[in-house]
């Protein structure tokens, strides 16, 4: 069993029998964002689930995606409850809609992934004042030891998608 990775005071564990996350994080360590795609209907899903929620097929393959997307929602944590995040406040957590498979199989669906909004170095948290719904991001990988990396998101220069919105203060 691989050793746990310590990150911000948390012990992150992906054991050998973790049939959801093991390959996802191994691929992330190679700086590849991969999702499961159904062998029957071809639709991707995140997080890695064991059956296709759209056609119930059990077969799947890992498919690499671009990691580009748009901030669909966000929050800014000002009062951290996890001790390892206290020195990082205020920090932004983003819910990113990937460009692939937007609006499929219904208009309300998309592939959505959670990450922190970080600088291009993948490690430093971005100024939380920069976060807004509609802004464009790309994935970057924060290496944690030899076997794991956290997919994070950083802002790009691309024009925003739709209306740009930030909580009025």
């Amino acid at each position: 069993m691989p050793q746990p990775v310590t990150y911000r005071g948390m012990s992150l564990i992906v054991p050998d029998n973790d049939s959801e996350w093991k390959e996802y994080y191994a691929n992330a360590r190679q700086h590849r964002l991969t999702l499961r795609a159904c062998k029957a209907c071809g639709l991707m899903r995140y997080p890695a689930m064991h059956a296709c929620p759209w056609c119930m097929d059990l077969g799947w393959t890992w498919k690499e995606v671009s990691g580009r997307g748009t901030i669909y929602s966000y929050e800014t944590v000002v009062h951290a409850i996890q001790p390892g995040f206290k020195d990082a406040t205020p920090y932004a957590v983003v819910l990113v809609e990937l460009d692939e498979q937007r609006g499929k199989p219904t208009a309300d669906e998309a592939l959505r992934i959670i990450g922190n909004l970080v600088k291009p170095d993948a490690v430093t948290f971005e100024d939380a004042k920069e976060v807004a719904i509609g802004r464009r991001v790309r994935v970057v990988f924060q290496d944690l030891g030899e076997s794991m990396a956290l997919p994070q998101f950083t802002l790009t220069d691309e024009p925003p998608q739709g209306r740009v919105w930030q909580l009025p203060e």
Partner: protein
Amino acid sequence: MAMKTLKDKYCIVGVGETEYSRGSGRTTRAMAVEAMRKAILDAGLRASDVDGVLDYQGGDSTFANHVAPDLGIRLNFYMDVMGGGSSTEALIGLAMGAIETGMCNTVAIYRSMNGYSEFRIGGTGARAAQPVRGMDLAQVPFGMRSAGQTFAFTFMRHMYEYGTTSEQVAHVKVAHSKHASNNPKAIQKERVTVQDVVGSRWIVKPLHLLDCCLETDNATCVIVTTAERARDLKARPVYIMGVAGRVSKPRVDYHWVHGPISRVAGYYAKDIVFGQAGIGPEDVDVTGSYDAFTFTTMLQLEEYGFCKKGEGGAYVSSGIIELGGKRPNNTSGGHLCEGYTHGMSMVIENVRQLRGTVDDTCPGAAEGKHSYDYSVGKCRQVRDPEITMNLGWAMPATGSALIMRR
């Protein structure tokens, strides 16, 4: 397809609770015993009349088969259910089912928690020290663990899509604080203003401190039995018209993956519960919309059709949800002001509202004599309510509902 219904065939006959405190200094077993004893006495029952017990918890409480024998209850049926918010209504439905099958006759349902002094909601303390693995890997490594952090995407997206403002939802806290000021049991009795709420410190944007409920030590209990049995008992029976339990959106584990995230479970639950009861939102006199946060009250009132989708902000800031308004919500002060109970206290309050015996400071409250003066420290009884509705919340993707009548 028409919903199967047990409308008016079951009643809530007893309610009870401990003090709401921030430091009970005793076990969840001690508190559960006290709350259940009060509910049994409130109903005019004896221990031997209760033969079923249900409870819900998250590894933070005492099991039913430990609590019942302390009171001399011999069980024909018991079950401990995992879960927090939205469990009360769901377990009331399960109790009706257990009685309907003939497994037992009368069921006590309790929740007992040292939610402040022992197991706090945000995953701090003992829970925070556990390794992060499995489904937690999708959000915990990104500094997202507490209920507020997990729900905030939904709140923020609602503001983006519908123009809902912090000031609008602050009115939920304002209303509930008004109600709590007339509730001797409430932890936080001071009335607050919109400015107090939006001026309080940020926890996780868009939530300010006063948008969040009060972690509390307490136990609560309600007793369910048949309408036939209820008619012989001491208290005025409160009839169950409809119940929906833990109705969910297509994805519960990762609720932010699926569909429009500004939609909550009431979207699916409303047809079940209103279908059983044969009424609509306009027929409801008092609501108990779960206020883990100001936003959760607003989102549910909107999704169940008390206003149009997207107009929840306008609805909760219109005065309708305040005592003296058309349809008051959480007249006890709810989780935001009375204390956090994972939903049971809001059912208890509505039972008392329907009986006309809300425990305010009116001298004749226990006999149903009220002043209907809603100024500070006075009355919180609604005038002759006929139908109440509880909207239980576990998370954006899961909710329960209960419609009761007098």
